[in-house]
Structure formats: structure tokens, C-alpha cells
């Protein structure tokens, strides 16, 4: 029904734009990672030195492992908060469900910075939490380890990514045909068995999607460590950021970025395959 001209007219502009302003930049990042820095100048000579540095300098591996640990903790905590919430909304919330759903997803789209800053004011040594603890005479002096620690980063990122994790899990739970659950109950399964053997397996695709989002986005985060993390919570993206800033070594920074990119895409690809295998047909 649509003419050839129509199809060309709608397809060409976005293809061109995305090719120039998205594909080309990503390709440039890739190319930089194979270039060199000599005497402070970028040399366009193809080599693998940057990647070699990634594997030989223990600092990068060390920070990467810390980043993975933080991202895994964020994923775990977000699931711990997001899954029961999604379960509650889908099966127990009754008529308030729609409203509660909105209350969860609204913060998802609202300012990362505002939500991060809120934690800074709460956790600081003259912060709200310390004031509260001293007011109740639980502590006498300000506790300084709340802020500027990996713990603060995990807390802040969990706060930010819980709605992200909630969303696909809730969608998966909503897609479970209710007769299936009734059948399980009618056939004598108690609530625990129904959950473990019917609901949980059918919600795995949503759970995987949510977990991947939380993990991948935490893995590349550099703002939370700057805002509430401090030096002991430096993450891999902070190294990239400093290589592009003060340290000025774009090729090395690009190589680490490509590393983050590859881990991200591999994970997304793997979970997509798994989701398909687990999804209910």
C-alpha cells in the first residue's frame, strides 16, 4: 500500500542521521582504542597496546572487579526490593493497583541527579541520618562512613534502579494467565508451591531483563562514585572519565570503554537468548 518513494522518504533521513551521529561516533570510539598516544599527541597507528595495558596493569582489573561487585550488589538489592513489590502489585493490590503502579514508575523517569543528591544530604557527616541518630542518642558523634563508601554507591544506585527492575518483572507477572494459577491451587498446591513452581518460573524472563538493566547501567556509572562514593568506591567508568579528562589518554580510555561496551552487549545478548528460552508460549 505504501509506495517506494514513501518508504525511501521515511527511511533515509533517520538512517543517515543515526549512521552519522551514532554509528560513526561509536566506530570512532572503537578506532581510538587501537590508536596510540605519543608525547601527548594522538598517533593514528593501529596497535594493541591499549588492550595489553588493560590486562597487564593490575589497577584496571582491580577496579573492574570492584565495579562488578558493586553492580552485582545493586542488582541483587534491586531484585530484593523490586520483585516482592511487583508481586504484591500484580496479585494483592486489588483496585489500588493502577495508582501504585504509577507511583513506582514515575521516579524511574525523574532526575538521576536529584535522587542522587538526596542521598548525599542524608548520608553526610552533618547529614540528616547522623542528625537523626544523635537526636535519638544512638550515636554521640557523627558517623563518617555512611557517605564516601561503596555502601553509599550501592544504596544510591539501588534506589535509582529498583523501579527499572520492577517494570519488566511486573509486566511478566501480569502476563501470566490467571487460570494457570487457579489450576495450580485447585490441584492442591499451597501458595508456596504455586509461587515456586508456577509463578517464579514464568516470571524469569522479566526478572532477567530487570537484572540485566540494573547490572549494565550500574557497571557504566561514573556519577554515583563522584557524588557519594569517594576514592574507595572508584568505578571503572571513573577511570575512563579521568583518562578523557586530566590524565589525557584517549586511546586507553577508549579501550576501557570498548571493554565496558563488549561486556554490556554480551550480557544483553545472553539474557535475550535466555529470556526467549524461558518465555511462556
Amino acid at each position, binding site marked *: 500500500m505504501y509506495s517506494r518513494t514513501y518508504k525511501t522518504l521515511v527511511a533515509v*533521513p533517520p538512517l543517515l542521521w543515526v549512521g552519522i551521529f*551514532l554509528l560513526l561516533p561509536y566506530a570512532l570510539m572503537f578506532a581510538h582504542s587501537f590508536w596510540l598516544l605519543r608525547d601527548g599527541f594522538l598517533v593514528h597507528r593501529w596497535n594493541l597496546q591499549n588492550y595489553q595495558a588493560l590486562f597487564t596493569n593490575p589497577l584496571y582489573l582491580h577496579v573492574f572487579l570492584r565495579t562488578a561487585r558493586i553492580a552485582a550488589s545493586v542488582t541483587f538489592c534491586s531484585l530484593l526490593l523490586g520483585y516482592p513489590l511487583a508481586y504484591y502489585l500484580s496479585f494483592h493490590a486489588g483496585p489500588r493497583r493502577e495508582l501504585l503502579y504509577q507511583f513506582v514508575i514515575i521516579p524511574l523517569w525523574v532526575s538521576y541527579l536529584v535522587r542522587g*543528591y538526596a542521598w548525599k544530604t*542524608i548520608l*553526610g557527616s552533618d547529614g540528616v541520618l547522623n542528625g537523626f541518630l544523635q537526636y535519638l542518642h544512638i550515636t554521640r558523634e557523627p558517623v563518617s562512613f555512611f557517605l564516601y563508601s561503596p555502601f553509599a554507591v550501592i544504596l544510591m544506585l539501588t534506589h535509582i534502579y529498583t523501579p527499572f527492575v520492577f517494570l519488566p518483572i511486573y509486566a511478566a507477572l501480569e502476563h501470566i494467565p490467571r487460570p494457570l494459577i487457579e489450576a495450580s491451587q485447585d490441584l492442591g498446591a499451597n501458595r508456596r508451591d504455586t509461587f515456586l513452581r508456577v509463578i517464579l518460573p514464568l516470571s524469569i524472563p522479566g526478572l532477567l531483563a530487570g537484572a540485566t538493566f540494573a547490572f549494565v547501567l550500574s557497571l557504566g556509572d561514573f556519577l554515583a562514585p563522584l557524588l557519594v562514593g569517594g576514592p574507595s568506591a572508584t568505578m571503572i*567508568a571513573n577511570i575512563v572519565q579521568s583518562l578523557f579528562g586530566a590524565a589525557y589518554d584517549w586511546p586507553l*580510555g577508549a579501550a576501557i570503554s570498548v571493554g565496558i561496551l563488549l561486556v554490556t552487549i554480551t550480557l544483553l545478548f545472553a539474557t535475550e537468548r535466555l529470556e526467549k528460552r524461558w518465555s511462556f508460549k
Partner: protein
Amino acid sequence: MTSTKSTPRSPLLAAYSALVFAFIYLPIGVLIVYSFNRDGVGGFPPRHLTLDWYRQLFSDSAIWDSVINSLIVAAASVALSLTLGLLAALALDRANFPGKALFRRLVLLPLILPGIITGLSLLMFAVFAGMQLSLFTVFLGHGTALISVATTELFAGLQKLDRAQEEASLDLGATPWQTFWLVTLPNLKLSLIAAGLLIFTLSMDEIAVTFFLIGRDNTLPLEIWGRLRRGITPEINAISALIFSVSVAFIVLWYRLRARSMSSAPREFAETS
């Protein structure tokens, strides 16, 4: 759908969910309360409530300059990403072209990848193309990255569209151009407004990509970011509270419009059976 059997009472789960809600909203609540606190961003309990910080905020010209910068960038980004997103959605919905599957994935990348990857890639592109970093590069970044949001939102809208109307229009002698302007676009009006609101909010709040593309003029989030390094005052709470309120208002509006534009669709449950 909600038979009595499927909504058993579960006080423990309800209490846990209430705690999760508290975790999500309490920090924002605290932030807002302390924006009225005379003695600073911390301490407990908040005493001496005052509007002084808001007064200080309203006479802070650097903040309002950055707000104007953000508004300009956001408005331009909405225009760019909606235009290209609409075309992309139409192309994905109606045309077959080589690399279509790749294109679909590529467009979505900025949404899925950590902001630093997209931000740095665009920074390298800007330097490669000999561009000075400025609000224009920020706009290029936002506009391009948010094509992802525009495309997904408008593609969803297109899926709900009744193609018979377009067919009738073409059969009755309207040109494809007339059909696009008089049939396709008006039918997508709600989706377009909804997507525009979402993109506007996301652009106003964006920080990770902006971080690498900013020139001399700050956007609002970057202005706040710069001040955080110099120490914090409840003035930042005040602007944060305003950002939060405005963002929530926009997102609620987006959500309502979106629900309305999707309301002709079959209910979610029906899709699985």
C-alpha cells in the same frame, strides 16, 4: 479479572511493599523538607522553617541562565528526536530495507548503554568533526540519543493505528502527502505529545551524556553538579525540589496521555492467550 481467589490478603507482603515505597520516596521527601530548613541541609529535626532558600534561588541569576539553556536544548532536542523518531517508526513499521534489524538495535543503544559510552563517543565525534563544545553539541547528543525514546513510543502508537483509514484516504484520491498530514499525523497526535513530554523531561534532567559535551554554558543539571563540588546549601535542595515537582508533573501527564492513546488496544492479559 480480579476474582476473590486471586487477591488473598497478605499483610506481611503489604508491609514489605510499603517499606519499598518508603525507600523510593523518603529521600525525596527529606530533600524537600530540608529545602525549608534555615540551618542547612542536615541535622535533625529540621527547625526554623523558612522560604529564604527559595528567595535566594529566585534571585540567583546563574541558575536561571542555566534553566534557559536547558529549556533551549530540551525544546530543540524534542523537535529533532520527534521528527527523526517519527520517520524511523514509520520506516520500521512499513518499509523493508537492508540492515533493518541492525538499525532497530542501533537506535536503541543510547537507551541501553551507560551514558558515558554515548557521551564519549559523541565527544570524539565532535572533536573529529572540528566542532567546539557548546550547547549545540549538547543538543546533538540529546537529540540523537533520544531518538531511541521517540522511536519506541511512536512505533507503539503506530501499531495501534487503523491502517484502513489511510487506505481509504489513498483510495479516495488523496496524495500520500495529504494522507500523511491529514490522516496519519492527526491520529498520532496523542502519541506525539506524550513522547514529546517524556523526551523534554529526559533532556532537562540528563547529566551523563551532557557531562562530556558541555561547553562554556551550563545546563541546569551541570550547573547544580558544579555547585555540589563547592559545598552544599539548602538552595540546591530548593532547586532540586522544583525540578522534582516539574518532572513528576510532566511524567504524570505523559503517562495519562499515553494510557489514553493506548486505550483502544486490547487489554494486556488478552495478548497472551
